């Protein structure tokens, strides 16, 4: 092979500059004050940008620290996170969900955080239950960013125009009456009193807990086909009467806040999380508020619970556990960060931060806070974390409700079909 001098020079030049890059990469970790922490989280536009700005402000105040904060929508987040981990390119600070913390914790992807408390993470004031929720097999893998509660998000204006309002002490019967009252007045085509929540597994979980059952035990399903049949029958009836969305309209909901039937103007009520009050209010023209879920009886178990909205975790092989932990402390435990973010992500877990934040809150934030307080009064303990395979089971759950709504299947058949499918899914996903 013969190269002419020009090409050879070019090659030598390239090689030299490549090795220079390699050299600087090798030096970087050695210089203590040149730390670059990567932080990856899920979110939506607006609130995520506020979070990035807040994190940059924090990094700017600490010499030698730089933070790469990236975000993705919920659905893409998990795909990108798993590919980054597989590619040996994992972020240092990882956002976790209650649904996945066991899968990631047990696969040793996450760093046990016990040694990083109370320094740099001074989080004991969060309370035992909140810290407990981030533990897997007795080890702390995730720091909660705060509480979130599930409830009936609703269009206050549309309901008021129909002479309705959502009380705090709904039962499933009075909820049906409320929808009936609304449906009688409503004239808008393709618009309903409520979304059909028959396929909403988290709403079903609250219904189950009101009966003293739950979705999962430690090793399988916590309910029988009869329980599910009753639930599917309730919602089939709601749609048949024209109170809840029919199959064609319900299909427009795509598992994200922006496609909620309340947001897209197809229903006056639907299920929402408390941290969605702000972002939903930014998307719609009407007044959006939340109310607790209906109960079986006014005095029975509520089945409600406060869910850790999100966790912050650290990658097991992160070169900067200290700096990562300090960032987590900033995001979960300081007034500065809480002021930047409000209650976009959750109600802050630290009592002192929460209190200091109160006077500055916007109307919508206050609504979110008040709703969480209502749920907290009646809350039962946090359910066990979902078993591996939950993601697939959630989809099967939705599909079986749709089979009922499309008239392809009776509630009884759909319920036993789901039990079969879910058992298969859980067995296959069981860690070996």
């Amino acid at each position: 092979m013969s190269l002419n001098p020009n090409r050879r020079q070019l090659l030598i030049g390239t090689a030299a500059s490549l090795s220079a890059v390699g050299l600087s990469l090798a030096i970087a970790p050695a210089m203590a004050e040149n730390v670059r922490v990567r932080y990856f989280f899920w979110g939506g536009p607006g609130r995520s940008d506020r979070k990035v700005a807040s994190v940059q402000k924090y990094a700017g105040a600490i010499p030698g620290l730089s933070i790469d904060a990236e975000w993705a929508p919920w659905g893409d987040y998990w795909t990108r996170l798993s590919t980054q981990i597989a590619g040996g390119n994992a972020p240092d600070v990882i956002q976790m969900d209650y649904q996945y913390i066991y899968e990631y914790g047990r696969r040793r992807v996450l760093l046990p955080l016990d040694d990083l408390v109370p320094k740099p993470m001074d989080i004991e004031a969060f309370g035992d239950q909140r810290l407990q929720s981030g533990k897997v097999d007795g080890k702390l893998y995730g720091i909660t960013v705060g509480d979130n509660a599930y409830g009936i998000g609703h269009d206050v204006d549309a309901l008021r125009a129909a002479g309705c309002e959502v009380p705090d002490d709904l039962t499933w019967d009075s909820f049906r009456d409320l929808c009936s009252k609304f449906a009688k007045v409503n004239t808008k085509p393709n618009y309903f009193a409520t979304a059909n929540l028959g396929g909403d597994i988290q709403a079903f979980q609250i219904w189950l807990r009101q009966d003293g059952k739950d979705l999962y035990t430690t090793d399988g399903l916590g309910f029988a086909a009869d329980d599910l049949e009753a639930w599917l029958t309730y919602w089939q009836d709601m749609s048949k009467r024209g109170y809840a969305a029919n199959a064609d309209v319900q299909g427009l909901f795509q598992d994200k806040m922006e496609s909620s039937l309340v947001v897209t103007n197809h229903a006056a009520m639907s299920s929402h999380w408390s941290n969605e009050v702000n972002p939903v209010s930014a998307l719609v023209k009407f007044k959006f508020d939340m109310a607790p879920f209906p109960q079986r009886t006014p005095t029975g178990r509520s089945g409600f619970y406060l869910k850790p909205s999100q966790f912050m975790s650290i990658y097991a092989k992160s070169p900067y556990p200290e700096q990562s932990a300090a960032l987590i402390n900033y995001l979960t435990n300081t007034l500065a960060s809480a002021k930047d973010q409000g209650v976009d992500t959750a109600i802050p877990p630290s009592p002192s931060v929460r209190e200091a934040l109160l006077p500055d809150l916007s109307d919508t934030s206050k609504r979110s806070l008040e709703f969480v307080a209502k749920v907290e009064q009646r809350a039962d303990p946090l359910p066990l974390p979902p078993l591996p395979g939950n993601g697939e089971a959630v989809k099967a759950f939705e599909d079986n409700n749709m089979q009922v709504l499309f008239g392809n299947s009776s509630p009884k058949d759909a319920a036993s079909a789901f039990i079969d499918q879910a058992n298969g899914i859980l067995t296959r996903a069981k860690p070996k």
Partner: protein
Amino acid sequence: MSLSTTTASPDRPSLHVAARERHGVGRGAGYLFLLPWFLGFVGLTLGPALISLYLSFTNYDLLRPPVWVGLANYARIATGDSKFAHAIHVTLLYVLLAVPLKLSFALFVAMALNRGLKGLPLYRAIFYLPSLIGTSVAIAILWRQLFAVDGLVNGLLRLIGIQGPGWITNPRYSLYTLIVLAVWQFGSPMIIFLAGLRQIPGDMYEVASIDGASRFRQFLKITLPLLTPVIFFNAVVQTIDAFKAFTPSFIISNGTGGPLDSTLFYTLYLYQEAFGYLRMGYASALAWILLIIVAAFTTFAFLTSRFWVHYDE
């Protein structure tokens, strides 16, 4: 799939190579020019393909190192996976409907444009446009809006007194909206048909009409036979494309293949297994099965082609 049957004669180029070697340029330069393609092929196509073949025999979950499980993934595909069978059904239905419809429509438009129309380049560009933008995310979202229960299509239907269903939210119709979307992207086969039609000598039609052959008969006896190489090419390319379809269903169903798995394309199922449920090993096995299916279809097309494809002598 070259349209021409001429191949370079083997003797003369080798003389050239010998001449070049004497001049000291050698094969090195040739390989150097080949290098960019070769690196891309090995690094981005062959390498990952071989790795996926290996992974298809493991239980790789992206988070932990892969563990060898032998033929377990393939055994599950063959026996215990009803979703696999369903995804095959959806994909075959899509391929068998979308490809013939798209090709017929493309040929129809090409023939309409082939009549010495004024401003042909403009029309050609306009009709080609959907093919450029059709696979984009924006169009998939637009499609969702058009065919929603209160979308534009139903708005038009309401004008004539029909209450349409939710075309994309109803599992009975959702796949057909995707087929319509595919047919709408008829541009690239149309361009190729146009080029093919131009090749047919005009005097053939002249002679035929003097002999009293009808337009339809001319189409059957002249246009179609002479166009078979182009039809063959288009059919193979479009079939492979249709098997690989992913974006429309991914965007319109939000990655679920819904409603009720009615748009669960094979590629989408594969994607769900890999990234939704972290079963990369299983997904790799699915990918190899797809490769085998597409290869079988293509081989079948080539084997039968000599019975119906007429090349010019």
